[in-house]
């Protein structure tokens, strides 16, 4: 029996396979397909202090081996979550992590304080990397001083596990990772989507209402993997890896590169059950390689 458990700071995951924010709703949508207790956890849809309608349609464009999205953090706000969604998901026997978003530092703080009251939610993923909002979002995640500032201020009001989600749209992702580590982040997760663009030549129009959007899926995997590898080598805190994971082999590669936990995102759209297959595949790999636990796999890249 291989041991699939992993710990990221104080968060215990029963296995290292989780679903990425924005690709699994608020977890309950996935229960139409499978028992939520089977996966390591859910990173819930990006939540803001107040209701956000998100961007205009069209918000999606398929691209070679991936897609662009410009959802723009549509959600009904944290109070709606607490009153209407949280009670429905409170008994799920898995980790539920809220993806926290703001236009200002004050937003991030106010939102975090509300999340702090929720016993079931033992960690937050601080999203300073959303490329699809005009204010805040990625702006915080692309410079060291602003990334440090948000992390520091949120850290002051939050004692549970603080995961900072990094943007790949930077010159040096290791600099940002070290900057947030320095301000007390308990873990980093990466990568968010890459800023991209698609044009419909016949009509000479952009395919997204926002012109640019975030690229995800297998198209980004090699870059995401490189970034996870670099960051895992640059920080002491755990790294949560994602970007184009489609199957168990991809997940294992991210763990070899140093990810303690992985998130499956866009792949869920193609196959809502993909996380379960990845869990089986990881288990099978560990057995075949005579490893007793996932911990032995993490960062075990042979150079």
């Amino acid at each position: 029996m291989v041991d699939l458990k992993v710990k990221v700071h104080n968060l215990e995951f029963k296995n290292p396979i989780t679903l990425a924010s924005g690709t699994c709703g608020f977890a309950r949508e996935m229960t139409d397909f499978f028992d939520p207790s089977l996966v390591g956890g859910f990173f819930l849809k990006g939540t803001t202090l107040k209701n956000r309608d998100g961007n205009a349609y069209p918000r999606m464009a398929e691209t070679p081996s991936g897609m662009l999205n410009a959802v723009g953090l549509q959600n009904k706000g944290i109070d709606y979550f607490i009153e209407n969604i949280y009670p429905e998901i409170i008994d799920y026997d898995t980790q539920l992590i809220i993806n926290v978003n703001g236009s200002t530092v004050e937003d991030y703080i106010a939102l975090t304080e509300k999340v702090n009251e929720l016993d079931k939610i033992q960690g937050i993923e601080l999203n300073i990397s959303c490329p699809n909002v005009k204010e805040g979002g990625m702006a915080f995640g692309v410079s060291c001083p602003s990334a440090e500032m948000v992390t520091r201020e949120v850290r002051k009001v939050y004692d549970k596990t603080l995961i900072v989600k990094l943007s790949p749209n930077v010159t040096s992702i290791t600099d940002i990772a070290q900057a947030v580590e320095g301000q007390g982040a308990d873990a980093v997760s990466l990568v968010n989507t890459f800023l991209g663009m698609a044009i419909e030549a016949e009509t000479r129009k952009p395919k997204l209402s926002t012109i640019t959007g975030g690229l995800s899926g297998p198209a980004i995997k090699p870059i995401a993997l490189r970034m996870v590898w670099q960051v895992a080598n640059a920080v002491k805190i755990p790294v949560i890896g994602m970007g184009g994971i489609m199957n168990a082999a991809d997940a294992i590669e991210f763990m070899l590169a140093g990810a303690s936990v992985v998130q499956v995102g866009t792949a869920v759209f193609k196959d809502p059950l993909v996380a379960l297959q990845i869990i089986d595949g990881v288990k099978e790999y560990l057995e075949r390689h005579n490893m007793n636990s996932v911990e032995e796999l993490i960062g075990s890249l042979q150079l």
Partner: protein
Amino acid sequence: MPKKFVAEFVVVENRALNATNFLIKVKAPTLLPEIKPGQFVNVEIHEATDIFLRRPFSVFEVDYEDNTLSMIVKILGKGSGKLTEIKVGSKLSLVYPLGKSFTYPDKDDKILLVGGGSGVAPMLFLAKESGLPISQVDLILGARTSQDHVNVEDYAKYASLHYASEDGSLGEKGFVTQHSVFTTNLKNYTKIYACGPDGMMRAVAKHAKDAEVYCEVSLENLMACGFGVCLCCIEPTKNGNQCVCTDGPVFNINELKW
């Protein structure tokens, strides 16, 4: 217990209905859940190597005894084109059943079903399922020319059939909304249902509004997931942005901002 499923179906029939529309029937590996008109499936098209996401198609017919369902696929681009080339015996992965169905008519209703392009499938399904006598069901199909029409004569036992074509080669000349069923007494109907190109549905909705007749339309917004998690398929409604894949694809026109 799961309510939605992902499974490999086997293609048991692939038949051209005309130059661009194909009927594809697939057999499920396990018992099919109940599927109603307006609901759809999301199909992975392995053969189309240059596309990434699944493609949504309305369910056209369900046979619970054979455990098969079929869809009418119109060739539009890369994915649908490859799908219509699929061989009998091939596997096809479906996510199903998705979306909400049309509201079934009451036994006293007189209904008008309007189908255009690939939107004929759910209209025919609804005609069959409505349980109403033919005298209470009118079905009108619109197309550019007689060649673009799918032969639906089999459905004459469920509905009175009417045709409109832009060149007048089948039925009345013009768009469906220029057809006499629309221009004579639309108020005779108690419910209108429509599925087809956006422009057609908007025109139908406008006529229904003017005549103050209850009307439901089925939207075909671009989708990534098809089950309500990506929020890509939204339609602005009077209740805010709604997901076409889970809140729809069927909407009462009074909810829409058309």
